[in-house]
């Protein structure tokens, strides 16, 4: 039988799933590679597991929301990601959606 903590954790994960994509897209207005993206998210208080982050970046790129290229930095090849034009448009729409949801929910909470 799941405990209250289990239920809370599962609901929290469900709640966070969509918002993480929003945070990742927002951070990639500026070009970053995976590790630096994770650090940037951590710095603003958004924790994301690397195991979820890297496949997410690939999916977003496949969907055409990100563009990427391999470059050498600190003597190592790194894959840099950035929002594509389509990604910028989608992010703007998602941000509007987020604000609308937030505005609607805030008085209820």
């Amino acid at each position: 039988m799941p405990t209250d903590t289990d239920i809370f954790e599962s609901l929290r994960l469900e709640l966070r799933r969509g918002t993480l994509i929003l945070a990742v897209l927002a951070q990639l207005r500026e070009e970053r590679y995976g590790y630096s993206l994770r650090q940037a998210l951590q710095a603003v208080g958004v924790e994301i597991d690397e195991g979820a982050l890297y496949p997410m970046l690939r999916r977003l790129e496949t969907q055409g929301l990100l563009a990427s290229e391999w470059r050498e930095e600190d003597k190592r090849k790194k894959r840099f990601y950035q929002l594509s034009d389509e990604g910028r448009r989608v992010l703007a729409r998602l941000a509007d959606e987020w604000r609308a949801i937030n505005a609607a929910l805030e008085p209820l909470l």
Partner: protein
Amino acid sequence: MSDLIDRYLAAVAALLPKAQRQDIAAELRDLIMNRVEETEGRLGRRLDKRETEDLLREIGHPIAVAGRYGPRQSLIGPELYPFWEFAVKVMLVIAAMATFIPGGVLLVIGDADAHRIGGLFGDFVSLAFSLVGVATLVGAAIERGWIKVDEFAKWKVADLPHIPRGRPLFAKSRFDAVFELAALALFVGWWTGAMKFPIGAMFDAGRGDLKVILAPVLTTFYWPILVLALLQMVSAAITVIRPGAVRARAAAEIVCALGGVALVAVLWPAQPLIVFQAPEGAYAALGNLRRSVDLSIQVILVVMAAISLTTLAVNAWRLARGR
């Protein structure tokens, strides 16, 4: 340390799609090296073998890591799952019926021993696993878009069955139709020899020289019986897919009922439909069994004729009224 990382990356890479293997492995290597450098910076020294192992374990088992890059995580997704679960329940009922009804018959005709009864459970498990496996394969194919079910996805409320004012006599629910469809599919599988069922034990296994076989007339009417079963499947499929299409269902049922009446008409004079072959002495001892089986067949044919005629009348009425 480098050897451990290389081995870890090779294990992940082996499980990745070939086209992306190098790319993903290179990115993972960068991630791992960043993590190593970060940890070494914090400790102020190089990582030893055990610490490197801990770090790699933290990133995840190679199967789990490679799995996250796959295009899809689930065999049957949450939207399809209720349909798959429903299909599995129907399949289990069908498997139980296809196994235990012939088993019951074997018991009644006294041809059941402990070994055969025990074998029935094995047959049930084997048939149930096969049917559930087929349902799962079909579900996985639908999930991946290999089988298109656009028509099913575009269902209309108007296609749902009318709410009966009291359940009308001879009305067929969607569940009944799904059940009928699955049962007919199994019958067609058995009739065409495409599938083996425990029911075969009734016909091709006997005690010593005793053989229980289908009468030649059934072989003569192989194609009409098969066509009739397929037509009945079409009728059941209409009920499943478009339960609101009353006239189409009624027309299909009328065709099947006419076929049923015709089949009874040709089979009745050709009895017995199940033939026993045995040595002279043993054959005489089978008198009671032969009479019971012949009587059962006659009852089945009479019931079949009655059902076909009633179906004909009811569906002619439905065809005229459109409801």
